[in-house]
């Protein structure tokens, strides 16, 4: 079994699943109906992308693994998503800004992953990129609207920026399996995305009249399975049914 390739694909899948799950928590709670529908659609795209990656990972894992077993039966330490994906939704501003940071990263990542020599990864990237383009556009507009909006909205997105910024460093800080995947031609060296990511984020923050934070100390560890206390609660809710009633189907 190609463990490094498996870890790399699981990392991509876990990012999409955990952020998708977080966004799905807004379903029925959005600030207005249209935006409730928007964030739920974005959640659905994430779950769809995760399914495609998990299906690909399952063929490598073998031993009876399926997309469901990979999503529902692994534990916190096995998950390889970036910490940014699992932080709590907070208010609308925090959710929007998290989505914007993530979409800017996924947009650059999937653009390059289309050149992967793993045909399945290239195909998933090509498909996902079209969806992420809409997410990035939507979240960029909201960041600008909130930053350059009322005193209240500006305070909230400012707080979100302060809270989330330390989680952004991990996006472009490659784990060992990412470097290996890149040198073998099927993955992307995310450190090569850093300057483009910073440029896109800065231009939107400036348009939102928000100061781009200094790059200080950054959180990391999610890609290696060292998570915040929040991931366990996500998994407890998400995995409960399959763990309590193994193999249950709708």
């Amino acid at each position: 079994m190609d463990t490094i390739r498996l870890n790399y694909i699981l990392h991509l899948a876990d990012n999409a699943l955990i952020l998708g799950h977080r966004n799905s928590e807004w379903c029925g709670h959005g600030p207005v109906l249209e935006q409730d529908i928007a964030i739920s659609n974005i959640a659905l795209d994430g779950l769809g992308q995760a399914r495609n990656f998990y299906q690909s990972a399952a063929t490598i894992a073998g031993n009876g693994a399926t997309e469901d077993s990979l999503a529902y039966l692994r534990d916190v330490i096995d998950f390889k998503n970036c910490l940014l994906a699992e932080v709590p939704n907070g208010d609308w501003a925090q959710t929007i800004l998290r989505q914007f940071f993530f979409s800017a990263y996924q947009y650059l990542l999937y653009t390059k992953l289309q050149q992967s020599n793993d045909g399945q990864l290239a195909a998933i990237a090509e498909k996902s990129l079209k969806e992420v383009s809409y997410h990035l556009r939507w979240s960029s507009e909201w960041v600008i609207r909130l930053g350059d909006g009322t005193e209240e909205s500006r305070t909230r997105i400012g707080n979100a920026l302060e809270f989330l910024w330390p989680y952004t460093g991990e996006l472009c800080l490659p784990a060992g399996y990412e470097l290996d995947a890149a040198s073998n031609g099927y993955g992307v060296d995310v450190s090569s995305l850093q300057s483009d990511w910073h440029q896109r984020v800065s231009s939107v923050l400036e348009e939102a009249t928000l100061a781009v934070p200094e790059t200080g100390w950054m959180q990391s560890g999610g890609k290696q399975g060292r998570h915040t206390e929040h991931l366990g609660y996500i998994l407890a809710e998400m995995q409960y049914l399959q763990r309590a009633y193994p193999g249950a189907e709708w």
Partner: protein
Amino acid sequence: MSTGLENINTLNTQDDLKKQVYQILETVLDPEVPVLSVVDLGIIRDVQILAPPSGGGGGWGVEVFVTPTYSGCPAIDIINVHIRMALLQHGFKEIRITQLLSPAWTTDWISEAGREKLKAYGIAPPHYRQSVCTPEAFQAEEAIQCPLCQSYNTRLVSQFGSTACKALYQCNDCKEPFDYFKCH
């Protein structure tokens, strides 16, 4: 389901069978936009006829190559079930449905007939793919025609609508809120 189509066993060439498969697939509708067939929608990428196994006892088989519209489209599983049932009803024995992700589905693949059906159903059909599919914020909006009064004086309410493939618009003239099958 009565489609008025012949049973496939009365046909014999692979070309005839392939045409027949497409006619059968024209009767399989998208459950979320039930005026469009899966052929209109452009998600059928290819059809291969599988010869009956030697030794007799079998019948013609078919492999259908399907691509999803969006990664998370919740309708894809039920669409596959409907494709399988329609082909079984017309006498195919072995049916394989294979998912293709690349090239990625685009609204440019929706047929002209499909665009007309969408409009008649009250959904503005997609424009051909343009610069609007980029991630830049607050870009100039395309003029989308109101399917009710034909006015181009309309506004985007939300890029995300009742299903993944649609955006919400409102007509400034007749005030009708409507879905736009957004370009992808």
